C-alpha cells in the first residue's frame, strides 16, 4: 500500500483470535464440487436451526464457474442474532474434497476444528483426500463415506446425509428435520421426502459417533417471530416501504436479487419495474419517473455505478430525488464480482464531476438493509437529492435469521407544490433550502428541470451569483437536514474507539462485546450516514479516545475520507484489508489489545 500511515496499520490476516466466546455459536462450512448441493444443504441447515429457535446466517462462496463447479455454504448458528461469521470454523463438512483446496484462503481452521469428509474409495478417479492446504491447520480429520451412506438408502443423496450430519453436530434432532423436509420437499412427492429423511437419518447416526460435537442449547423462552431474509431482499423491502413504486433494472452481480425481488413485488403493489438496456438508461429512467412524482430506485454494483455518475450529477443539480443501491463487490474494474469489499466509498461520495453533494448511507447488517434503504428513500425524497445506499456482497447475498426488522415511520415526504400557483420558481432560495417541487399536471407549475447552472426560475444562467447561490443551497439543505440518531450506532465506553461503517459493524460489535466481557471495553461507532458526514457529532462521539478505523479497502478510503473531513482529531490507527476475506471480530479485538499493550 505504501501510504505513510501504513506503519500504523496491522496485517489483519496475521492477527490471532482473542477470547472466543463460549459455545453459544457454531460455524460450519459445507462444501462440495460441481452439483454436490452444498448450498442447498447449508440453506436447509439454517432453516432447521431457525425452526428450533436459533438465529444464524449463511454466506456463500462459489467458484468462477457459471454453474456446477465448487461451492461452499458457510453457516453460523447461534443462540442470539449474529451479524458476521466467527473467527474460525468449528467444522468443515465436505461432501467431497475434490476442489476444497480453492476455499483454503477462506477457511480459518485450528487444531480444535473438525475436517469431516468423504475421501472416496482408493483407486476411484473421483476420490480425493483432505487437501494439504486444509490439513496443515492441524484440524482433526474424520472420514465419513457420504457416498456409501447415501447409497445405502433408496434414492438417497449425499447432501442429505451431510445435512443430517451437520444437524447432529449442533444437536438438531431427527423430528426437527422431518418437519422441514416435509415442508420443502413435499411437492416432490412422498418418495423424495422419504429418501431425504432416510439420508438425514444416516447422517444423524454418523454424527452420533463423532469425536466431538457442538450442541447449541435450545432457547429457554419461546422465540418470537423470526425472518429468514437476505440483505438484497431486505433492501427491496425497505425500498417499497419507503414508497418506491418505480424501479429500473440492469442485472449485475451481486445486486441482481434486489431487482428480482422488486420485479414481482412492485407489480403486486401497483408499481412498475422496467428492464433497461444499460445503466445509463436505468439511472435516467428513475430520474424521469421521479420527476413525474413517483419515488424511484435502481440497484447496481461498482461497474454500473461508474456508468451512472454523470446522471447522478444531473439528479443532484436538477434536484430530482432518486435512490441507487450499490451492492459492492471486489474492485477495481470487473474485479471479483462474487465477493465482498468496501471499496466503492470514494466513487459513491466523490465520484461526480463538479461539486455535487448528496446522501450516502450504508446498512449495518443484513436486516438493517431494510431500514437503511427505507431511510435513503426518505432522505432522497425530503431533501430532493440523490441517496446512494452502500450495501455489499456480504450483506446482500447472505441469508440471515433475524427478528423481523421494524419499519420506521419517517413522516414527511417530498415537498410538493400545491395545485395552481402563480409566479412559481422551481429553485427558489427558501429558508430550509428545499424549494417546493412542481409535478407535471399541476397548473402553473411548469418549469424545465436542468443540469445547466440555473437561476431560481430554473432558466439556464452562467452568472457567478446564480451558480454560487444554487451550490450553496444544495449544500445547505443536506447539512441542515435532521438525521436523528440514525447517522451512527454508538455503543460502549472505553479508552479506544472502534470506528467502522456498513457491513463491518457486525464484526466490530462482536469484537466490542468480547472486549467488554474480557474487561477491556471500547467504544463502538458504526456509521450509517457517510455523506454528508456528521463531523461535529462524530468528533463528539469519539471524544478524546484513540481511534481504530476498520475497513475493507486496500487504500484506506474510509480513513482518508474521515481525515479529509477533519473528523479524526487524535491518535488514529488503520485496520484494513481489501476483500474478499472478511475482517473477523477476533482480528479487531486483537488490534485493540495490541494497541493497548504497545
Amino acid at each position: 500500500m505504501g501510504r505513510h500511515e501504513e506503519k500504523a496499520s496491522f496485517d489483519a490476516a496475521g492477527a490471532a483470535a482473542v477470547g472466543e466466546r463460549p459455545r453459544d455459536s457454531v460455524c460450519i462450512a459445507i462444501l462440495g464440487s460441481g452439483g454436490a448441493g452444498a448450498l442447498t444443504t447449508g440453506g436447509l441447515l439454517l432453516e432447521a436451526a431457525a425452526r428450533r429457535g436459533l438465529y444464524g446466517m449463511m454466506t456463500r462462496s462459489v467458484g468462477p464457474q457459471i454453474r456446477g463447479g465448487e461451492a461452499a455454504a458457510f453457516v453460523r448458528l447461534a443462540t442470539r442474532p449474529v451479524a458476521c461469521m466467527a473467527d474460525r470454523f468449528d467444522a468443515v463438512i465436505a461432501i467431497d474434497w475434490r476442489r476444497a483446496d480453492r476455499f483454503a484462503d477462506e477457511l480459518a481452521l485450528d487444531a480444535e476444528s473438525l475436517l469431516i469428509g468423504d475421501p472416496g474409495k482408493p483407486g476411484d478417479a473421483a476420490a480425493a483426500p483432505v487437501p494439504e492446504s486444509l490439513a496443515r491447520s492441524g484440524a482433526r480429520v474424520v472420514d465419513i463415506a457420504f457416498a456409501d451412506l447415501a447409497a445405502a438408502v433408496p434414492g438417497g443423496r449425499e447432501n442429505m446425509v451431510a445435512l443430517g450430519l451437520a444437524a447432529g453436530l449442533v444437536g438438531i434432532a431427527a423430528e426437527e428435520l422431518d418437519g422441514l423436509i416435509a415442508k420443502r420437499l413435499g411437492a416432490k412427492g412422498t418418495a423424495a421426502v422419504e429418501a431425504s429423511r432416510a439420508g438425514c437419518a444416516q447422517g444423524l447416526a454418523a454424527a452420533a459417533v463423532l469425536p466431538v460435537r457442538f450442541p447449541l442449547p435450545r432457547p429457554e423462552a419461546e422465540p418470537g417471530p423470526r425472518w429468514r431474509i437476505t440483505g438484497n431482499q431486505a433492501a427491496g423491502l425497505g425500498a417499497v416501504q419507503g414508497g418506491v413504486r418505480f424501479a429500473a433494472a440492469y442485472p449485475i452481480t451481486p445486486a441482481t436479487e434486489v431487482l428480482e425481488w422488486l420485479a414481482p413485488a412492485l407489480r403486486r403493489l401497483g408499481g412498475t419495474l422496467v428492464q433497461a438496456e444499460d445503466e445509463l438508461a436505468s439511472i435516467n429512467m428513475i430520474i424521469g419517473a421521479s420527476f413525474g412524482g413517483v419515488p424511484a430506485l435502481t440497484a447496481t454494483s461498482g461497474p454500473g455505478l461508474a456508468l451512472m455518475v454523470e446522471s447522478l450529477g444531473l439528479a443532484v443539480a436538477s434536484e430530482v430525488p432518486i435512490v441507487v443501491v450499490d451492492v459492492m463487490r471486489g474492485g477495481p474494474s470487473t474485479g471479483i464480482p462474487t465477493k465482498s469489499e468496501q471499496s466503492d466509498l470514494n466513487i459513491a461520495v466523490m465520484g461526480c464531476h463538479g461539486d455535487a453533494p448528496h446522501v450516502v448511507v450504508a446498512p449495518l447488517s443484513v436486516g438493517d438493509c431494510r431500514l437503511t434503504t427505507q431511510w435513503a428513500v426518505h432522505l432522497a425524497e425530503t431533501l430532493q437529492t440523490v441517496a446512494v445506499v452502500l450495501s455489499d456482497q456480504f450483506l446482500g447475498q447472505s441469508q440471515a435469521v433475524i427478528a423481523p426488522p421494524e419499519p420506521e415511520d419517517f413522516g414527511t415526504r417530498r415537498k410538493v407544490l400545491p395545485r395552481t400557483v402563480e409566479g412559481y420558481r422551481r429553485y427558489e432560495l427558501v429558508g430550509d433550502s428545499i424549494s417546493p417541487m412542481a409535478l407535471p399536471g399541476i397548473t402553473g407549475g411548469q418549469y424545465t428541470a436542468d443540469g445547466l447552472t440555473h437561476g431560481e426560475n430554473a432558466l439556464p444562467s452562467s452568472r457567478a451569483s446564480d451558480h454560487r447561490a444554487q451550490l450553496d443551497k444544495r449544500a445547505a439543505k443536506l447539512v441542515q437536514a435532521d438525521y436523528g440518531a440514525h447517522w451512527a450506532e454508538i455503543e460502549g465506553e472505553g479508552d479506544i474507539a472502534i470506528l467502522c461503517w456498513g457491513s463491518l459493524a457486525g464484526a466490530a460489535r462482536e469484537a466490542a462485546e468480547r472486549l467488554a466481557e474480557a474487561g477491556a471495553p471500547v467504544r463502538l461507532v458504526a456509521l450509517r450516514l457517510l455523506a454528508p458526514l456528521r463531523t461535529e457529532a462524530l468528533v463528539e462521539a469519539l471524544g478524546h479516545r484513540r481511534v481504530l478505523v476498520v475497513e475493507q479497502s486496500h487504500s484506506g478510503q474510509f480513513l482518508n475520507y474521515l481525515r479529509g473531513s477533519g473528523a479524526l482529531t487524535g491518535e488514529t490507527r488503520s485496520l484494513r484489508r481489501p476483500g474478499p476475506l472478511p475482517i473477523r471480530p477476533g482480528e479487531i479485538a486483537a488490534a485493540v489489545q495490541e494497541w493497548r499493550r504497545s
Partner: protein
Amino acid sequence: MNEHPAPKRKASDYKSEVKPVWCPGCGDYHVLLSLTRMLAASGTPPEQVAVISGIGCSSRIPAYTNCYGFHGVHGRSLALAAGLKVARPDLTVLVMSGDGDGFSIGGNHFLHACRRNIDITYVVMDNQVYGMTKGQPSPTTDPEWDSALAPGGTGIRPFQPLVIALASGANFVARAFSGQPNETARIIHEAVMHPGFSFVQVMSPCVTFRPEQAAWKDAVHPAPVEATDDPARAARRIMTDDGFNIGVLYRGDRPVFDPHSGAEPVPLSALERSFAL
C-alpha cells in the same frame, strides 16, 4: 394523448417567454413553432405535456415551451422519458433531440426505445452536424463534409435514422422539414396520436455551420406514395429515395408497452409474509 376538451388554446399558449439562444435563421425556430401549433391543435393543457431533451442547440427547446420540461444530459432523453411515461401514463411525453444527441451518444436508447414501444413521440431535429459544439460531423453528416475534426471528411456512411427505426420496431415513422411548419405540426400531431413509439425526423437546417442546407427548402417534396404498414417495404423505399420525401412513411400496430398489472395493489404486509419462518 389524452382527451382534454375546452378551453381552446392558441399556439402562443404553449410558448414560454424565454428568448431562444439559437442563431438567427436556425431551422429550430420553426420546429418550435410547429410544436406549439400542434399542441394547440391537440388541445392538451400545457401542464399535461412533458418535453424531454438532451444536450445540443436543438435540445434547448423544452424551456421555450410552456410545458413541463427536462433538459437532461447528452444522449439520455429517451431513457428519462421512458421512466416518466411508465410512471405517469396520463402525461403526453414528447422527446426532442438532435442528430448528435439522438444518433451518436444516444443511439442505444434509440434502438431500445423503438423495440420497447412505449407510447411517446420522438422528434429529432436533424441538421447533420453538432451545432452546439461548433461544427463537428454527426452520424448523419455526409462523408465528404470537411471540418476541423475530420479534415477532408469522415469517409463514413451516414446513419439512416428512419431505416434503423423501422428495423428496431418503431410504430410510426415520418420525415418532416422545419421550413414547413404547418406540415410538420400535422405530422407531429399524428405521431403523438399514434399509439406506441413514434419517430419523426425533422430536417432542420443549421445556418451557421451548414449554410448549404439553405438548399433543402427547394429539394423537399411530399413522399410520392401513401404510408405503408409493412416495415420492410417502408425501409426499402427509404433506402432508395432521394432523402427528401416528406410525410408519414410507416404506421404500425404493434402492442404498446404496458408493465402495469392492472390488478388491485396488495398491502405491504403481504410481501413481508414470505420472509416469516
